[in-house]
């Protein structure tokens, strides 16, 4: 099994009241993939004069795939939350991933440092028996086809103009 880190999301916010912090990224991976994962770590430390209540989330296209609420007490150790989410390959092929944190209440102080790695996993598969393949179309890319058609139309228009002008 091999893993490739496709992209990384990071957020950081010092002690503050209310609000939120986020980083969103469209993840587009076209390489080999049998499964995808998101591996992340949130670290919440207390805010010296108060505890830090922080809500932590990971979203894909605005849908929550991970959510946790933590509180780092005054004088207590930092609270670390590790998470790993298993995804389909399609979820790292043009989807928007968001690493997000917010204060539990408008009046609660919070802070956070977090990082999440988006990983493509390739598991070895038994070698398939080769099957005869049929030749594909000469022009498979629709944009190239559109450009070729536009060029033909443009050339035809120029020839028509030239013929009209010649008369």
């Amino acid at each position, binding site marked *: 099994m091999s893993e490739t880190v496709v992209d990384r999301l990071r957020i950081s916010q010092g002690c503050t009241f209310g*609000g939120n912090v*986020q980083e*969103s990224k*469209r993840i*587009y991976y*076209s390489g080999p993939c049998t499964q995808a994962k998101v591996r992340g770590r949130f670290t919440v430390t207390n805010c010296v004069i108060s505890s830090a209540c922080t809500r932590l989330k990971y979203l894909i296209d605005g849908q929550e795939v991970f959510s946790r609420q933590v509180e780092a007490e005054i004088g207590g150790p930092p609270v670390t939350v590790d998470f790993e989410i298993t995804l389909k390959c399609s979820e790292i092929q043009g989807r928007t991933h968001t690493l997000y944190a917010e204060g539990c209440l408008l009046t609660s102080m919070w802070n956070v440092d977090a990082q999440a790695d988006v990983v493509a996993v390739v598991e070895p598969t038994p070698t398939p028996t080769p099957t005869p393949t049929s030749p594909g179309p000469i022009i498979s890319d629709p944009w*190239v086809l559109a450009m070729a058609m536009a060029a033909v139309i443009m050339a035809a228009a120029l020839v028509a*103009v030239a013929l009209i002008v010649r008369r």
Partner: protein
Amino acid sequence: MRLYIKAEGNPIAWPEVARQLVLAPCRETRAVVRYRTWQNGVPCGVNIEYKVNGQVVWSAGPIPCGTSGEVEVSAPCNGLHQLAVWGCAGCFWGVEVEVAADAPSLAPLLAGAGVVGLVLWLWRGRRR
């Protein structure tokens, strides 16, 4: 394709938005977002959002003032590219941000065809 915004604001300032429509023979492109922020008062924090066809390609915020960064992203090539900046709630803010994408434009091709057509038309007109 290049989008650029340089703006400052206060707690009641509107977001600044730049848009560009791209039609090009490609599907996926590499885009680089470069930004720097500066202190325009206290409190200070900036939000940046880059969307293509309504889908967020990259966004972050609030970004602390007095910082800079560069992010490389993969974006759809064709469609409406939109860059927006605004401050965090109740914040004063300053930001300069640029998105540069490898999207080729159809404009040079169309302009070239237009020039060829014009030259041909003038040349034929003279010969008559």
